[in-house]
């Protein structure tokens, strides 16, 4: 224990210089997405109002996950608020690692949070994280290219139509790809996309007995369709494209269509960053002909308080502030309605000002049509649309999506990949004791 004291003393010495005495300070781990970074800019207003200082730890998504997961599982106590998603929240909540968000003030109006979001961020009816913004996925397309191709996008297209339209829009000599989709390995990247594509072809990850289903014909059909369509009309090297890469392609006018997160709508219609801002239309995510599930997901980046923090009250205060109606109005006032964090509150979509935003209705429709409790045509034992909310999923899906990415890169066949995915998933599920 002598070592412990010596180290503490040494550490304390190095702190003397910097440790300014503040009444209260909370540490927040967050992801480096645009809306979060914008929020950091407004933190001063929160500090002014409450006297609580806020320290930000802003990390790229993958690093953030690694960091907060390590900290929460070991009870490291490094953060007072963590930014997590719909996948982590129910699992962590069930383990008792998060502080239940109960007893919020009347003006906060918990009931106003979109039911889909509230359900996804709860476990056994208790809310464990408050959505900062929520998203589904939808089709974003170039109205000018659509017109040029002589086609008209229906509000609810099928995959078959999407494929035809993509082929018609593709003009490789002019660097225009009919369709840009995620192929990048990772459960939250290409893994999420191919999972929802599977859903819309009638496929599922597991049957009711938790047996992996990659040996079923629906998966083969979905994956083959995806690969063929991307070969016809997708950008070169799409096997490494994720949300970001596609966003930048679309903003540069190199995509005819892009099916991805609804939050992207505000980026592609922002004339500061996007060269095609005034030529974007929106439609629901497609389904295969005759399949009753669309390929739209449901996700929220949400703020949660790890159990055991010394700053529970201050943390709650911050969450109330950041996910409130007032915060939305604050952003709207300063940066316009198109830039407020979307997808979290019913009142936002009832606001006549917000209804003027071109993508507002399609975003809401997409969110409302997503049902995490019944994600697939055939019944499944799990909750979640583009994921299965079990602890093993992230690891399995990342590796499965790596096999799929190898297909996209032309390194193996659809059959080989599905066979490996099936074997690997079975192996892991068995190891986990299912």
């Amino acid at each position, binding site marked *: 224990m002598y070592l412990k004291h010596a180290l503490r003393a040494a550490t304390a010495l190095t702190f003397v210089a910097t440790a300014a005495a503040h009444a209260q300070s909370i540490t927040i781990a967050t992801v480096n997405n645009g809306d979060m970074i914008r929020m*950091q800019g407004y933190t001063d207003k929160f500090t002014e109002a409450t006297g609580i200082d806020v320290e930000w730890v802003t990390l790229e998504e993958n690093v953030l996950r690694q960091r907060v997961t390590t900290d929460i599982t070991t009870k490291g106590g490094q953060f007072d608020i963590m930014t997590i998603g719909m996948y982590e929240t129910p699992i962590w909540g069930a383990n008792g690692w998060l502080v239940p968000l109960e007893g919020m003030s009347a003006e906060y109006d918990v009931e106003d949070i979109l039911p889909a979001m509230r359900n996804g961020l709860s476990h056994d009816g208790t809310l464990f994280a408050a959505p900062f913004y929520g998203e589904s996925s939808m089709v974003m397309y170039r109205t000018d290219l659509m017109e040029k191709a002589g086609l008209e996008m229906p509000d609810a297209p099928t995959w078959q139509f999407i494929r035809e339209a993509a082929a018609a829009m593709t003009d490789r000599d002019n660097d225009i790809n009919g369709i840009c989709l995620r192929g990048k390995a990772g459960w939250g990247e290409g893994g999420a996309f191919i999972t929802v594509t599977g859903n819309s072809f009638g496929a599922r990850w597991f049957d009711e007995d938790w047996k992996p289903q990659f040996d079923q014909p629906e998966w083969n059909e979905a994956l083959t369709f995806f690969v063929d369509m991307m070969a016809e009309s997708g950008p070169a090297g799409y096997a490494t494209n994720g949300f970001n890469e596609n966003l930048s392609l679309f903003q540069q006018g190199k995509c005819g269509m892009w099916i991805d997160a609804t939050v992207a709508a505000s980026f592609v219609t922002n004339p500061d960053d996007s060269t095609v801002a005034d030529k974007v239309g929106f439609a629901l995510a497609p389904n295969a002909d005759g399949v009753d599930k669309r390929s739209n997901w449901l996700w929220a980046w949400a703020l949660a308080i790890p159990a055991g923090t010394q700053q529970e009250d201050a943390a709650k205060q911050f969450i109330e502030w950041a996910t409130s109606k007032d915060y939305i109005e604050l952003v709207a006032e300063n940066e316009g309605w198109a830039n407020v964090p979307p997808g979290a509150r019913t009142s936002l979509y009832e606001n006549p000002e917000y209804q003027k935003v071109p993508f507002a209705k399609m975003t809401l429709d997409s969110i409302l049509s997503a049902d995490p409790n019944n994600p697939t045509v055939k019944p499944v034992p799990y909750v979640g649309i583009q994921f299965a909310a079990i602890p093993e999923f992230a690891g399995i899906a990342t590796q499965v999506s790596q096999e799929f990415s190898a297909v996209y890169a032309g390194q193996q066949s659809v059959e080989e990949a599905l066979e490996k995915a099936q074997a690997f998933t079975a192996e892991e599920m068995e190891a986990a004791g299912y």
Partner: protein
Amino acid sequence: MARAVTPRRKSLNTALAWAVGLLIFFPILWTILTSFKTEAQAIASPPLFLNFNWTLENYAIVQERSDYMRFLWNSVIIAGGSTILGVIIAVPAAWAMAFVPSKRTKDILLWMLSTKMLPAVGVLYPIYLLFIRLGLLDTRGGLVVVLMLINLPIIVWMLYTYFREIPGEILEAARMDGATLKEEILYVLTPMAIPGIASTVLLNFILAWNEAFWTLNLTAVDAAPLTAFIASYSSPEGLFFAKLSAASTMAIAPILILGWFSQKQLVRGLTFGAVK
């Protein structure tokens, strides 16, 4: 060892060496150039080399978003602290190995190096739990100790090889004159070993500065160094090449400048006993 050569050959050497040097340096140069572009210019096709409007806006944005000086200061303290602590512990050990060698000296050296082979990711949980227990998470003291331990084998080895090159007769002469062990180390050995110690310090400072696994995983706010700073710019939404370049330039500039001024020392001293 400047050999006399024909001017023609010298020009040829010069041209070739400069071409190769610029090629190797190019990625860094390109990063620095890109950091002065707007996001749109950064992805312009064809790429813009010098013919763009230089702007400092990326640096302003990065500075506004993160407190660069705090990250920088932590990097300096952690890299500097671990290097100094390492050298203090390594000098006596290396001295003993070089001047009082035994049959096992070589084995001990190789064993020390082998401790570096434990894959960091495999022991993240044990170390994280240990750090919680000791209250060392997110402290500079904790990181100083970890990075010191990681680099200690390299420090010992480098110093050992420098010490070995010091002729033993000098020591014996000093001893004849009645110098104590302490005096021997302080007044005889150390001055002779200064160049070696200097390059040891430099190399380990660089290694500690660039260490990106422990520094990222064991810190949050108070002790977060530049490696954590970079992790918030790596792949945000939207166009980010210019901002990433600015952040990268800020992260590597201090060490690049240090390297610039000390390269002679580094070139002369980095032998690991390779020169015989």
